């Protein structure tokens, strides 16, 4: 596997959320808005990359029997660092993530990568793997976050939780388009509010997973149809061959008595 493949595999082919269903708790809990998803994703990228590097550095000195507690302690150290930094520099994000910030420790994705990849590979590969997988996780979170925020409010805001600029910026809003025709209509009054509440998280994730499964089912069906066609083609060819052989044999049979007669 090349380094580029190693980096890119986390985005679609082995996406942690949509393919492996890892780290579902944060995927449901912190994806109320685009920005909280982005913040959570970036924190996971940092923790995953650092813990992968450290685990691959010290893998020779960790006894096999106590490896899980050792990995958890390494991960917990980085999570504590991240927690304190977030509390100091992005207090709004810290409040919005709440208990899910310390819970990065038990995120199955991070422990899973330490166990499955970093404990068997060298430092550079592990760092690339951590970065790629973390960014794939972020991509998954952002997809859910954008869907939920858009359905709940009709727009996407930026700058509410992360300390960037003084005022929140509206990235996308249906209000802008609708106000061209009717200035009194505000889309925020008509958003599907349930998508910002817990039930919406389950339904939104279910919808996204259904899209993925639909694509996969269609691909599988295409492969199955192609396979069946190939088998049918082969059967046809074999039948033709048999037929040709039979005809040939019959002709020879017919020819043989004549030859025999001619010989006489």
């Amino acid at each position: 596997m090349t380094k580029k493949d190693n980096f890119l595999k986390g985005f679609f082919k082995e996406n942690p959320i949509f393919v492996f269903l890892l780290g579902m708790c944060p995927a449901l809990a912190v994806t109320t808005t685009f920005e909280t998803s982005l913040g959570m994703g970036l924190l996971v990228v940092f923790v995953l990359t650092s813990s992968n590097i450290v685990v691959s550095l010290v893998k020779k000195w960790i006894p096999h029997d106590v490896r899980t507690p050792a990995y958890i302690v390494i991960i917990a150290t980085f999570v504590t660092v991240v927690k304190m930094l977030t509390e100091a520099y992005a207090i709004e994000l810290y409040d919005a993530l709440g208990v899910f910030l310390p819970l990065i420790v038990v995120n199955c994705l991070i422990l899973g990568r330490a166990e499955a990849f970093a404990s068997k590979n060298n430092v550079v590969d592990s760092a690339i793997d951590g970065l790629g997988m973390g960014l794939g996780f972020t991509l998954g979170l952002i997809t859910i976050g954008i869907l939920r925020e858009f359905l709940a409010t009709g727009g996407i805001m930026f700058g509410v939780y992360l300390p960037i600029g003084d005022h929140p910026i509206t990235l996308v809003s249906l209000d802008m388009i609708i106000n061209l025709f009717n200035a009194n209509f505000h889309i925020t009054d008509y958003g599907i509010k349930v998508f910002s509440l817990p039930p919406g998280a389950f339904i939104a994730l279910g919808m996204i997973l259904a899209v993925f499964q639909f694509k996969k089912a269609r691909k599988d069906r295409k492969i199955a149809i192609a396979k069946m066609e190939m088998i049918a083609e082969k059967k046809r060819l074999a039948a033709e061959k048999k037929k040709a052989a039979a005809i040939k044999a019959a002709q020879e049979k017919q020819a043989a008595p004549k030859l025999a007669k001619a010989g006489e």
Partner: protein
Amino acid sequence: MSFTLFATAIISAMLINNVILMQFLGICPFLGVSKKSSAAIGMSAAVLFVMVISSAITYSLYDLVLYKYGIPYISTIAFILVIASLVQFVEMFIKKTSKSLYKSLGIYLPLITTNCAILGISEGNITNIWTETMPYWQGLFIAVSTALGTGLGFGLIIFAFSSIREKLEASNVPDAWKGVPISLVVAGIMSLAFLGLAGII
């Protein structure tokens, strides 16, 4: 007085602030071991057992050691170590004392270390219940009652969900929705129903 505290903590943790449907803790076992009702019951019993013990220990640890000696910032590391070793200890203890209990709970215990509900409740107890002025025993009492309610709520939801999933297996679902997607939508509808319980206290 103490009974009111107990009942409030239990009902609010079990029904209003349900651990799975409202707080999104423990989603992995919720989706993973809910294919059969028997497995769901075993898992929720193991979670209830470990959750009550671990929240009592972590609350005491935070109040009596970490806060007293001025190192509350290492709580995450301390808690996860306590939980991991507690799970090991409980597994060994059950194996020695009760063979039948080990048979029913044994395979679920190693999975609990990475169950975020346990660590989540331990951390939540500190942020929601613990205050500098609260007496130790009162705080411990509320923390343990909350853990008990949370474990019961976890069991209630995971059992109901596994029963629904057994029905879903037999029903005619479109290919794209089969498996996890339809289960998530079912969970969303259950969550919507539990949203209606908010405000009964």
